[in-house]
């Protein structure tokens, strides 16, 4: 497969996933903000979300304060934010169009319809009561795209690079969500109403509140939430589930391309092994923040290494 084609598929996977993740993050923070000052300061909450989406510098260059209005606009419609929903939709479609013949018609239609509908929206879409409906719509479009890919794509190289992008982006998102609330997971942190609400917010952002109950059948406790999101392979958005996929997909790509491999293959295997071979206690004792910061850095490195080996020819 052409390197450029693989590159476009990989970024199509990433941008589509990112759009959904931004919407999920927003939904969860909206809820936190509406709980009022007793449990969380709205400014702290919005700041956390903007940081999780990786755009703090760009945001502060434009806005003085982390108000809800500013954060929502920044994350949805602002085209100067490379990770805004608007940009994810635009970039996803641009990548899809460049490799149209590598997509199934169901995938193309999912992406293209999203783009067409988004162009018809007005600024009022993200205001007040209309915002939740808009976020639901974005989430559903990502689900549709993922479903179309999973259900209609030939399990060949095109699928693997798309899936690789989706999984890497998902891992990145989960890591960042944990990072912005890392204080809750520090050993000896207070287990009060506020920390409970924070735990809830993290779980909601990865659609796992129910999953937690199914796995633990217990009230929310920070170490268990961390374990679920980091260590439990049965949760599709946990770090280990995502890295397991990334590792496996890279092994198949290596076999596909006549044994072509680079540092990406080793990095992925190492990241997967590190999660598999450690208990959550070890990680929490060493500090979640340090662990996650390292994970995010490794994730960025892995992205660059994948590009070097496979996407830039």
């Amino acid at each position, binding site marked *: 497969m*052409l*390197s450029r084609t693989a590159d476009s598929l990989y970024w199509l996977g990433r941008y589509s996933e990112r759009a959904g993740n931004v919407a999920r993050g927003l939904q969860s923070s909206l809820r936190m903000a509406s709980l009022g000052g007793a449990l969380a300061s709205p400014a702290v909450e919005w700041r956390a979300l903007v940081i999780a989406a990786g755009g703090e510098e760009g945001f502060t260059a434009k806005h003085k304060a982390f108000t809800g209005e500013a954060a929502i606009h920044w994350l949805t419609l602002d085209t100067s934010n490379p990770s805004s929903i608007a940009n994810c939709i635009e970039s996803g479609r641009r990548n899809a169009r460049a490799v149209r013949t590598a997509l199934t018609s169901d995938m193309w239609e999912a992406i293209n319809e999203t783009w067409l509908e988004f162009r018809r929206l007005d600024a009022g879409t993200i205001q007040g009561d209309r915002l939740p409906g808009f976020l639901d719509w974005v989430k559903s479009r990502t689900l549709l795209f993922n479903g179309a890919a999973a259900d209609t794509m030939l399990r060949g190289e095109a699928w693997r690079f798309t899936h690789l992008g989706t999984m890497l982006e998902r891992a990145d998102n989960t890591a960042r969500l944990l990072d912005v609330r890392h204080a809750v997971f520090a050993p000896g942190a207070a287990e009060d109403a506020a920390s409970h609400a924070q735990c809830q917010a993290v779980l909601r952002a990865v659609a796992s509140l129910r999953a937690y109950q199914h796995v633990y059948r217990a009230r929310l406790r920070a170490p268990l939430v961390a374990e679920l999101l980091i260590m439990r392979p049965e949760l599709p958005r946990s770090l280990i589930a995502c890295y397991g996929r990334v590792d496996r997909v890279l092994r198949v790509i290596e076999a596909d*391309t006549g044994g*072509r491999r680079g540092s990406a293959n080793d990095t992925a295997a190492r990241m997967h092994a590190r999660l598999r071979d450690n208990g959550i206690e070890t990680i929490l004792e060493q500090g979640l923040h340090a662990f996650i910061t390292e994970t995010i850095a490794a994730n960025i490195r892995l992205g660059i290494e994948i590009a070097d080996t496979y996407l830039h020819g």
Partner: protein
Amino acid sequence: MTETPPAFDEMNDQGGTRAPYAGIARYLEAAGEAALEKKRLDAEVLFRRIGITFAVYGEGGDPERLIPFDIIPRVLGRGEWDRLARGLEQRVRALNAFLADVYGPGEIIKAGKIPGPLVLENELYCKHMRGFVPARGVYTHIAGIDLVRTSADDFYVLEDNCRTPSGVSYMLENREAMLRLFPDLCATHRLLPVSDYPEELLETLKSIAPANCAGDPTVVVLTPGPYNSAYYEHSFLADEMGVELVEGPDLFVEDDIVFMKTTAGPQRVDVIYRRIDDDYLDPEVFLPDSTLGVAGLMRAYRAGNVSLTNAPGAGIADDKAIYPYVPEMVRFYLHEEPLLANVPTYLCEREDERAYVLDHLHELVVKLTHGSGGYGMLVGPHSTAEQRADFAARIRARPNDYIAQPTLALSTVPTLVDGGIGPRHVDLRPFVLTGREVRIVPGGLTRVALREGSLVVNSSQGGGTKDTWVVEDEPDPSQSQSQSQSRGGF
């Protein structure tokens, strides 16, 4: 405004419905306007859904537009077509012989059959091709020859397209649309298929792989990218042939060998069907700041390590100033009489012909020698005195840039327009493939001028397309006529 001269209608001659159109005429009569209008809408939905669009960026509005498709096909009888096909093959053989000659020994110039400066000083003459012979000595592997018709027996070549003619995807998609929209009507005709074009194209491309290519040649289609107006066609052809669609940055040259960058590492490329113009092919040789091409491509080409279709410099054969000499090429290289006629052409650079042109602007069509797309053109009978004065001044200022031809009464074909069915002028672009052998699929792209009386068929100027049918002359006795009638067209 002068009236358009009476035109030959391909369906309705003085003697009534012409034989190839008998089935269509019966169908149209039985179907009625409402049913036809519904079919027209169905066709539009179909084309939108498949995404057969041409990109128009920078003009605002929908950047991906449809070329209007007319549902009434243009029909040629097998006998008519066979005669045309022989003429097309002959003409393209002569054009290739001419190219091999002017980049080689130059016999035709030495023989005094064509003025040397017209060729050698022409901006389309590519000096980098001098003394180099491409695989099998073929230069224009994919030629689009634009034909017009003025009577039952008279076809003329309006122009040759020897560089990167486009439109073949419409030929193929138009047929697919007709088969889906009018299955019964198609079934009652013995239609010669066109759907094997991509296979014929791939065979042609493989057959001109470099001599040193061992094994199955790797073929690619080189596109300028998604913002090019013909991008749909590029991706369509690559997809149909099952080859990679590459852009310049996907390729690189090392040791005079072309490679494409793949996930499995560099892969050698043997044949490039390039859909970018000569000027952009290789920044080392042509425009130095072009990012569409590949640095070193011409080195690899001249080293015999890769084949390019069409060959750089093939444009010298389709220059409008060279066109008047094509019949002479046929005689000179093939020792045959041309089977296809040229439109009589006046070269404004010749004093006596220029004088005639300036005196007869009101009845001539004036064209730029290097122009295309129907721009820079004066249609005398439809022009105002002001426009004629403007062209007269331009011709006097730069006579070499202009040619003139009589305004031909282009044939018409019934076309679905607002308010029913009306005659509209058409032309025809068949595609001629040359590799180990010459291959022509029966048909081509019929373009139709949708504006009443207009003679300009270019899609950029209000033109549409029709499916082009070549049908066996003898109706198939096993298909009864009543089938299409009894169903009333639904």
